[in-house]
């Protein structure tokens, strides 16, 4: 546990839950060490496979419950890609769906007590965020050539304002991957840290009921946040992809 009552005082270690450590042996964490991060990432993969492959294995016209959920997720993201990005972006749907399923399952698995939350780590979300950023930028230049730079040249604004707007647009463009990844990591990390702090107060008998009530409430909030952050990450990916495919304002 992150907190322990020592000599009547409270000691909070809300960040201990984010420590990466090897699961086999006590050695240093190398690149290929099988750590708790690896375990929970692979569990997320297993959950995605369980839902999307095993859940749909019957290919029933009248779906079972699991197949219904899988189809719901499929339809939800497919419609989002179609509505936000456009019909021509449907071929990028598998990538976007991969991102969504990974984040949503990581977030939900992280809510299991004593689990590890990969999406609270900036290293993980930065790979996701910058991955989207680089992919979208390369795609923009490949699809539109130099016309992609039109994204920064606001042709509907007065001519005198355009250079200033171009600078602002450029800055905001490069801030995108940072905000994209920190938003997800920050939300998940903050929620889990708050849960630990509330759990620490449970060591005092007098406030324990209040603390447990607080944990319950925050836990419910975190379930919501886990889904909403996955949704936000996905829809922002769609928005950035739309900018790359149709850079004109």
């Amino acid at each position, binding site marked *: *546990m*992150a907190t322990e009552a020592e000599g009547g005082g409270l000691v909070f*270690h809300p*960040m*201990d*839950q*984010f*420590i*990466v*450590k*090897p699961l086999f042996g*006590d*050695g*240093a*964490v*190398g*690149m*290929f*060490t099988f*750590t708790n*991060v*690896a375990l929970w*990432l*692979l569990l*997320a*993969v297993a959950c*995605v*496979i369980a839902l*999307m*492959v095993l859940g*749909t294995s019957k*290919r*029933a*016209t009248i*779906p079972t419950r699991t*197949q219904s959920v*899988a*189809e719901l997720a*499929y*339809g939800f993201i497919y419609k989002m890609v179609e509505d936000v990005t456009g019909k021509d972006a449907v071929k990028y*749907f*598998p*990538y976007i*769906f*991969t991102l969504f*399923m*990974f984040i949503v399952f990581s977030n939900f698995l992280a809510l299991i007590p*004593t689990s590890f939350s*990969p999406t*609270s*780590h*900036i*290293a*993980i979300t930065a*790979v*996701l965020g910058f991955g989207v950023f680089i992919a979208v930028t390369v795609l923009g230049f490949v699809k539109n050539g130099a016309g992609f730079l039109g994204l920064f040249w606001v042709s509907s604004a007065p001519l005198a304002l355009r250079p200033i707007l171009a600078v602002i647009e450029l800055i905001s463009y490069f801030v995108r991957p940072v905000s994209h990844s920190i938003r997800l*990591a920050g939300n998940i*990390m903050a929620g889990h840290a708050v849960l630990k702090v509330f759990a620490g107060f449970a060591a005092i008998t007098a406030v324990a009921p209040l603390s447990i009530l607080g944990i319950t409430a925050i836990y419910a909030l975190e379930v919501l946040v886990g889904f909403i952050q996955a949704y936000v990450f996905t829809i922002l990916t769609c928005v950035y992809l739309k900018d790359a495919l149709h850079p004109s304002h």
Partner: protein
Amino acid sequence: MATETTGTASACVGPDGSAIGMPQLCADWMPNQIFWLLIALVAIYFVLSRIALPRIATVLAERQGTITNDLAAAEDLKQRAVEAEEAYNKALADARAEAQKIIAQNKADMQAELDKAIAKADAEIAAKAAESEKAISDIRASAVESVEAVAKDTAGAIVAAVGGQADDTAVAAAVDAQMKG
């Protein structure tokens, strides 16, 4: 988290096993996280794009097809029901018209027969009336004749009774003159 007691895991973990600063910013762990993340993402991507997504797309398309077919069949059946109803209504209307026609025909026939009978009866009545008229006029003529004869006889007898010489020819002339007057 179980407390790490060795303290050898990383520079980011203190000797008591608790985190030093934010574990998220520990550069020692990042290669490991990124490596496993990429493995997880690639695994999810291949499983989804090779197996799950085509399967779900097929299932959804099949379901859509089934629904469309069923709706078309329902529409077809509905159309047939409407047609059957129309045929029934038409048959009913035809039968009604036929009945009307037969009734009209019968009525016309009866009217014609009736007219004929009335005409015949009228003719008979007219003939009878004419016959009666003739009989009455005969009777009247004979009555006038009888009255004349009686008057002449009576006049002759009266003249004779008064004592005069009754001249039949003069009496007859006088009676005729009187009857004309």
